[in-house]
């Protein structure tokens, strides 16, 4: 009865979520907008994005080339109408960010500066030094504080979507402070919960990137699109997985193998260091396998060398990289090459959503990394993601606002029952659970290592089949987990367990989707099927949840408008 009720409820306080919330208020200032986030919004993982956001801002650039680069980068798995809409909106959003105070780096004439980025034919990545995501996130978050219509529920962990008559009417969330389960109802819900890098051991993603929103939607009956498409970034710091931004290569850094050779000449001769991530990551792994990598305590690595750029350029454009090198590796990148190796970085796949973020469930939208609106296809180009969060966050916010302005109110009776159900589930499966002998941490680590091994840069049928079996057994073991924390206050063991539950399920969708795609496209590289197969696989995988072990996979044609698939060489 006394639960909160909103017109639009955003789950997720990252760049996409906050942009959506502001867009909803902009579209209709009378709406009451709620925002649920399991961490304070400024902690969201957008904060760690470094390189920048792509948009056509220069006269010498064109929508056409940005669209083409994106589509080619996606290995023709992007929906071209979506890409075309995206490249037109991106500049507007970049300017909007500027008006909100984002400290974009500037050119001499005071205009927003751009830098080259992998897979982009021209300079079009706007940046705020090498803390672009940090500045963008803090800018939208601080801007959002002026809207009294936006009510935040910080540190509230969404555990379930409320679905009533096949319409989404809110979420159930644990208020971390009190441990209470609350039903937060709304006429529309936008999921913007970010990525799921934490299902891998070696990842650039933060602790909170556990794919919760994808799992929530999946469990509510929405399909997950292209889950086999997992991006590996070529340049992560060994051990920590901290990202060395692609901007380092954009600014002119070299990738060198142990013979001191710019080995990319054998793989992407025309682009060299500015090739797309999937190809460079594969090149690095191939070099490792052929014995041309450095050997370190944390596995093989390559050198990323920026010494020739000079201290002045580094301090102006890559100051955070210097800081990271100094603090986390103990090197000065002005004087020493940076050790790097490929690292899980981004999830192209996600909640099946259309160009306005709408999912097949009425009132349910998705935006940002957790969504798959069809923009990124088989491989996202660096710096398209932050722009995607803005463009499609705003689109989802507007669409939800429109739906909410006309939708009827949410009835309370079924919500009470759903909440009681979920409360019961969480208490009996976790909090009041007795016995159990499996540690959450152990299962999580095994899953992460299995994913690294079975669904990494290169995949094989054997590897993926083995992975599905191991994941199934981890799921069985998950039933026997031990919960040591019985406190209701800030119980991070409970949330870790819920996250692990989500992650195991998402890992399975990845493994099964990858097993079924018997070709190599974008980030999905099958050793047993090294070629792209446009006849059979120029389509999206959509995974639906079933009661059995494996998801039901469905295929949907890629929408092609102006760009016919060609061989993808750089």
């Amino acid at each position, binding site marked *: 009865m006394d639960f909160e009720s909103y017109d639009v409820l955003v789950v997720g306080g990252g760049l996409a979520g906050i942009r959506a919330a502001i867009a909803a208020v902009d579209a209709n200032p009378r709406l009451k907008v709620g925002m649920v986030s399991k961490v304070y919004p400024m902690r969201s993982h957008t904060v760690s994005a470094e390189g920048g956001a792509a948009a056509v801002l220069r006269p010498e650039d064109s929508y056409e080339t940005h669209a083409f680069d994106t589509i080619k980068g996606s290995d023709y798995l992007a929906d071209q109408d979506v890409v075309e809409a995206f490249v037109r909106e991106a500049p507007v959003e970049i300017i909007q960010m500027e008006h909100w105070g984002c*400290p974009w780096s500037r050119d001499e004439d*005071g205009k927003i500066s751009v830098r080259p980025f992998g897979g982009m034919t021209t300079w079009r990545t706007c940046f705020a030094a090498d*803390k672009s995501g940090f500045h963008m996130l803090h800018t939208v978050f601080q801007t959002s504080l002026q809207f009294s219509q936006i009510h935040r529920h910080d540190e509230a962990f969404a555990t379930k979507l409320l679905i009533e008559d096949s319409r989404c009417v809110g979420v159930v969330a644990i208020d971390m402070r009190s441990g209470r389960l609350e039903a937060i109802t709304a006429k529309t819900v936008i999921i913007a919960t970010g990525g799921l890098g934490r299902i891998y051991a070696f990842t650039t993603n*933060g602790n909170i990137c556990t794919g919760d929103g994808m799992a929530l939607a999946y469990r509510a009956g929405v399909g997950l699109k292209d889950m086999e498409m997992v991006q590996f970034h070529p340049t992560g710091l060994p051990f*920590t997985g901290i990202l060395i931004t692609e901007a380092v290569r954009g600014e002119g850094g070299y990738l060198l193998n142990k013979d001191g050779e710019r080995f990319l000449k054998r793989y992407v001769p025309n682009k060299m260091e500015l090739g797309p991530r999937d190809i460079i990551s594969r090149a690095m792994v191939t070099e490792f396998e052929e014995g041309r990598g450095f050997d370190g305590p944390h596995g093989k690595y390559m050198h990323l060398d920026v010494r020739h750029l000079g201290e002045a350029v580094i301090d102006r454009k890559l100051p955070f990289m210097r800081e990271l090198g100094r603090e986390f590796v103990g090197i000065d990148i002005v004087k020493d090459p940076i050790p790097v190796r490929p690292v899980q970085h981004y999830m192209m796949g996600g909640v099946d959503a259309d160009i306005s973020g709408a999912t097949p469930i009425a009132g349910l939208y998705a935006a940002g990394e957790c969504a798959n609106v069809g923009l990124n296809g088989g491989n996202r180009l660096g710096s398209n993601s932050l722009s995607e969060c803005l463009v499609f966050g705003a689109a989802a916010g507007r669409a939800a606002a429109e739906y909410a302005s006309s939708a009827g109110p949410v009835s309370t009776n079924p919500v009470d029952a759903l909440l009681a159900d979920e409360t019961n589930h969480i208490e009996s499966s976790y909090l009041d659970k007795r016995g159990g002998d499996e540690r*959450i941490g152990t299962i999580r680590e095994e899953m992460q290592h299995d994913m690294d091994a079975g669904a990494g840069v290169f995949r094989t049928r054997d590897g993926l089949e083995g992975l599905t079996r191991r994941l199934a057994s981890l799921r069985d073991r998950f039933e026997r987990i031990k919960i040591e924390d019985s406190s209701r206050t800030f119980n991070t063991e409970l949330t870790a367990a819920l996250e692990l539950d989500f992650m195991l399920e998402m890992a399975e969708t990845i493994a099964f989707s990858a097993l079924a795609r018997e070709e190599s496209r974008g980030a999905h590289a099958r050793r047993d099927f090294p070629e792209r197969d446009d006849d059979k696989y120029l389509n999206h995988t959509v995974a639906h949840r079933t009661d059995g072990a494996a998801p039901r996979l469905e295929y949907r044609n890629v929408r092609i408008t102006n760009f016919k698939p060609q061989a993808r060489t750089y």
Partner: protein
Amino acid sequence: MAEKRITVRATRFDPAKDKAPRLQSYDIPFADESMVVLDALNHIKAHVDGSLSYRWSCRMGICGSCGMMINGIPKLTCNAFLRDYWPRSITVEPLNNFPIVRDLVIDMEDFMHKLKSIKPWIIRKQEYPLGAGEHRQTMDQIDEFRQFSECINCMLCYAACPVYGLNNEFLGPAATALARRYDLDSRDQGIKERLPVLANSEGVWECSFVGECSVVCPKGVDPAKAIQQTKLDTTMRFVLPYGNREE
């Protein structure tokens, strides 16, 4: 060689059970030279005691959630290396000057209110239309406020500031730095709206320039500078004949 180990003492507090926080000691393997204090906590949570609660996310010193007291000094646990402490033991406590919610988790709602109170967004007398493109801003103009825009809201400065510890009403270092970040931005015209909050009786005047806030700041924000400059600016606007004029 015997396995290297390190002792970590961490604050435990469950409001439902404990009257006051206490320390619990864990002896854990120090397996890798690159381990940070946060890795030690993660090891404890994953393999020793799942009930230990703390905040963290990025593990790269940018999300601002992992600040704690390490041997009495506020630090980001994700870039405090075990090798700098070993073989001494490490005591990890929640940040000073904040109410403790649970174990190493502090209550930072107070800052969230203060952040909002200083209006941390661009204020303009006249909206600049989106269609007109971007405001022009030179790198020199950015340098004016850059430092103050680097704040990650990690609360180390509040934990270091005794004035805040003695009087929680004090607006404090990070909030003032962020206000100044906007005041100094060439695109902003909101200084007059922010000054009353900065210069009220719980504002900058309370700061007695201990300076420790700037010492502990992991991002070189120098909030102490922001506060002192705000004092001077406010005073000058008042004292100089034309100081109060429009920008």
